[in-house]
């Protein structure tokens, strides 16, 4: 475990907290809009929504640079938006439009934009971890101090690919941060059924890297822990495993009614909703902001998403024969 006494005190200026709130709210409202658009039949793909987990991606990305990399999962909208993927291009991709960030070739599970450091999301569970190690090796070989973040769930932690990636990263002291989003369920299967230890982060010791558990619904805490790991990686001291405890405040995918968990458990976690918590922090105490500041952010986010939806709706669909393009790079 990282000795958190060494961690810098979080910078919790009001303006920074408002920025984090805006980033998290953008993801929340984006996902809610996606859900509604799916129900209206406007989004043709399945959706794995990030509702409830926003503090993880936003907290981590808030302490990354633009030239750092993240690799998302099959639940990637939050990972991508937090790293700077345009909501327009992401929404257009979900609408299967040619203006999408993958030109309609990827869909929900592959959104990304390398120009802002977001790899195309990898929808094979755990498979992004070795690729993240490669990105980290590349930074080291090219002599930059870029870091790479790989997200996966507590379910993904059991994939062999994650094991191989963590060991390789530790042996080569690669600047990569493994962020395990433990949302307690791999699809419908509870974590207690797939892991025989208390915390995924405990595994870090076996690879010779620091492991730390963080409240994944506290964006300030996530940012603080992530910044320790990131600075460590930038100094050439190798990888860190962060386990962020969080909860999906929605189904696994669009067809999931969550019959495998109780309404009581969901209610408990709703009280720990990362947005509600940050709003509370912002509106109470010495430096409390007026609630109208949050309303302004709400309005701004709504306008931003309206704009993304309008862009997606107005965009053309790909031609059927476009399916033949991009198999190889020279075709592009």
């Amino acid at each position, binding site marked *: 475990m990282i000795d958190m006494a060494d961690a810098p005190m979080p910078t919790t200026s009001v303006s920074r907290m408002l920025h984090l709130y805006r980033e998290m709210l953008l993801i929340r409202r984006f996902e809610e809009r996606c859900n509604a658009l799916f129900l209206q039949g406007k989004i043709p793909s399945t959706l794995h929504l990030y509702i409830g987990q926003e503090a993880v991606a936003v907290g981590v990305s808030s302490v990354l640079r633009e030239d750092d990399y993240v690799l998302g999962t099959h639940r990637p909208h939050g990972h991508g938006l937090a790293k700077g993927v345009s909501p327009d291009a992401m929404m257009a991709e979900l609408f299967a439009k040619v203006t999408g960030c993958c*030109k309609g070739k990827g869909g929900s599970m592959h959104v990304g934009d390398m120009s802002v450091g977001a790899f195309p999301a990898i929808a094979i569970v755990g*498979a992004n971890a070795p*690729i993240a*190690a490669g*990105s980290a*090796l590349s930074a080291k070989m090219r002599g930059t101090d870029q870091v790479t973040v790989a997200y996966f769930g507590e379910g993904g932690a059991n994939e062999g*690919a994650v094991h191989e990636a963590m060991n390789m990263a530790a042996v080569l002291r690669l600047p990569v941060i493994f962020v395990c989003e433990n949302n307690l369920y791999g699809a419908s299967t509870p974590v207690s059924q797939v892991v025989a230890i208390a915390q995924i982060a405990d595994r870090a010791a076996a690879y010779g890297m620091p492991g730390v558990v963080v409240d994944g619904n506290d964006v300030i805490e996530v940012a603080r822990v992530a910044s320790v790991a990131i600075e460590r990686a930038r100094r050439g001291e190798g990888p860190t495993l962060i386990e962020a405890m969080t909860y999906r405040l929605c189904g696994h995918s669009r067809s999931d009614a969550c019959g495998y968990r109780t309404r009581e458990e969901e209610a408990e976690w709703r009280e720990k909703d990362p947005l509600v918590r940050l709003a509370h922090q912002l509106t109470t105490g010495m430096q409390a902001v007026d609630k109208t500041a949050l309303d302004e952010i709400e309005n701004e986010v709504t306008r931003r998403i309206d704009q993304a939806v309008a862009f997606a709706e107005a965009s053309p669909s790909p031609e059927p024969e476009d399916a033949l393009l991009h*198999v190889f790079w020279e075709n592009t």
Partner: protein
Amino acid sequence: MPVMTIAEALREGIREEMRRDPTVYCLGEDIGVPGGFGGAFTVTLGLSDEFGHDRILDTPISEIAIAGVAIGSAMTGMRPIADVQYGDFLFCMMDQLANQAAKMTYMSGGTVKVPMVMRAPVGSTRRGSQHAQSLEAFFTHIPGLKVLAPSTAYDAKGLLKSAVRDDNPVLIFEHKLLYGSKGGRSEQGALSAAGEVPDEEYLVPIGKGIVRREGKDVTIVGKLLTVYRALGAAERLAQEGIDAEVIDPRTLVPLDKELILESVRKTGRLVVVEEDNATHGWAAEIAAFVADEAFFYLDAPIKRVSAPDTPPPFAPPMEAFYVPSVERVIEAVKSLF
């Protein structure tokens, strides 16, 4: 002109590309350990002396991570040359190759490229079922991968250099009996595929096959070891008055179809030889497109000479039965006349 084995030619190709481009590096198991092997078949032997252990990177025995690291580094500015000790181990990294490397450019809408090379030895060489398979066909079935199969030293170097410069994932299959590896890493029953390799720089273009022997009566298509089986058969058939043309596609994806079609239009007969299981295989695909595009030029059925639909066996007599022999090629050709 110096004469080199395939192992030496690959080594010189890697050396030239690493000197030319600082983003080129090698990764794999046992490739640069001091006092080690230089890879399972000596291809990287000595390269760490010139390039150091950061660029001749020894990894844990972690095939998934080797492939993933190659992909991730290729997507962010490097040009990795990865290898596996035996082609059979590609199955360990199958997700990374089939779902990640092959699809990354496509599913990103052509916004990212994966300029990586994966080298893999194939061929049945008295090691039993798990160090023997000829896996090329598996990978030819995955859109997004280029697949090379050099059978001479000249082609091995020229194709490797082209592969390193290609912006796509490229798999290079190398046959264990053709490497010409020396010392403790030499192979029983190896053929000499050594040949002249120019001192000056050259590339062999990806996607261009070659006629290894001209003939007018029958076309025999082979790859890797079976090119030599086909050439051996052609020499003996010539003594019996059958003039066989032997084609080595060199690149399996993209395939030089026109070279094969042109030959079949001339000879009217086709035999395809492969060291792989027949069912749904590479030879079947060659037969299918020739039937599709040159049916009316054919004077006889298309014949396949393949390994039987079994895993590769160990015992030398069984292995000799499994791998297509010169005799089986001759028999197949004669059945067409």
